[in-house]
């Protein structure tokens, strides 16, 4: 199930507001009482707080957004640390393979192919 916050983010982006701060601009709380998450503070003067219907229209997009975020996280972990990647690139340079035939490029492509975004 997608989070209310992700749908709010997409709603805000669709209305020209990016980089929402969910610690200041909008506060979403889940009191773990079985009633789900709620907007407890809406501090964006330039944009009206969305209705439930407006937010529901972002259900599918929010699911895609969160799935893709999970894929990004998986890919990031698989890429390994930056030092190791730079070492791989350096070796490709020395070998004259700073293109899609290089080891670094092949590794990155394999990870992306194994973890496609929606």
């Amino acid at each position: 199930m997608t989070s209310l916050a992700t749908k709010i983010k997409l709603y805000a982006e669709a209305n020209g507001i990016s980089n929402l701060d969910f610690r200041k601009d909008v506060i979403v709380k889940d009191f773990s009482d079985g009633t789900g998450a709620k907007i407890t503070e809406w501090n964006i003067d330039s944009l009206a707080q969305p209705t439930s219907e407006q937010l529901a229209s972002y259900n599918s997009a929010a699911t895609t957004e969160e799935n893709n975020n999970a894929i990004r996280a998986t890919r990031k972990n698989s890429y390994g640390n930056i030092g190791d990647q730079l070492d791989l690139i350096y070796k490709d340079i020395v070998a004259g393979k700073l293109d899609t035939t290089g080891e670094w490029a092949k590794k990155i492509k394999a990870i992306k192919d194994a973890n496609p975004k929606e």
Partner: protein
Amino acid sequence: MAYIGREPQIGNYVVMDALSASATADYTLQSGSTNFIPESANHLIVSLNGVIQKPGSSFTVAGAVLSFSSALTSNDSIDFVIALGNVLDIGTPSDGVITNAKLAQDIISSETALTDAPADTDELLISDAGTLKRIDYSLIKTVNTPMFSARISSNQSVANNTATTVAFATEHYDIGSDFNNSDYKWTVPETAKYLMNIRLAFDSSAEFYSALSIVKDGTGDIYSVQMGHDEASDSITGTVIASLTATHVYYITAYQSSGGSINLIGNEQQSEFSVFKLIS
């Protein structure tokens, strides 16, 4: 010290109960039918047959027994025996004249020691701004209760960018029964300073930002910890000593902005919300 007039005499001068002479040298001294033990023979004036006797030679004393140097007969007359005071009875001292130096320094250490904590109604002497008073032990003892500890029962999902009340549903202990493991809120039982400790662990190897907050019901955070996580770090902890007011209500929220939901790990080792009173 010189005196004008008669020097005041302090002591317990006692005329012993009458003694009847008989064919024995030994007589038990009594006062009011109770055996009387003088400090020594020198503390007694003894008159026998109208003659004052010399202590130590004409008579001696051992405990309450006065012994003449030889046995008397029923024809003799013990006129009187006067005890010239008991040095242990010095009368009633005037107010405020007994100094520390006059007290034996083992008046505490020589007494029987309590082997358990004192009862609440046991009393101690205390100087209240220079005035000696007694005080019940209950008023000065330090007790770190009320206290409780609870953990998450099973993994709990925390949605992206959502301050989620952490469901500490399993209590380790709750002395005072002030924590509600149904709504996960703790009601401050008495106004005091408390130590509050929280441990949480996210089940994620991703890089993300998290925060935990102690939230005062109805007003907002009183304490918050933010933390950036990488693949090697998924825990977040917070400890605070706070002055809290009775009847106020607190709970814990967890927050993360990974882009999706992450579970809080619901086991004993990696989740805990505990509070105990430090001092009133």
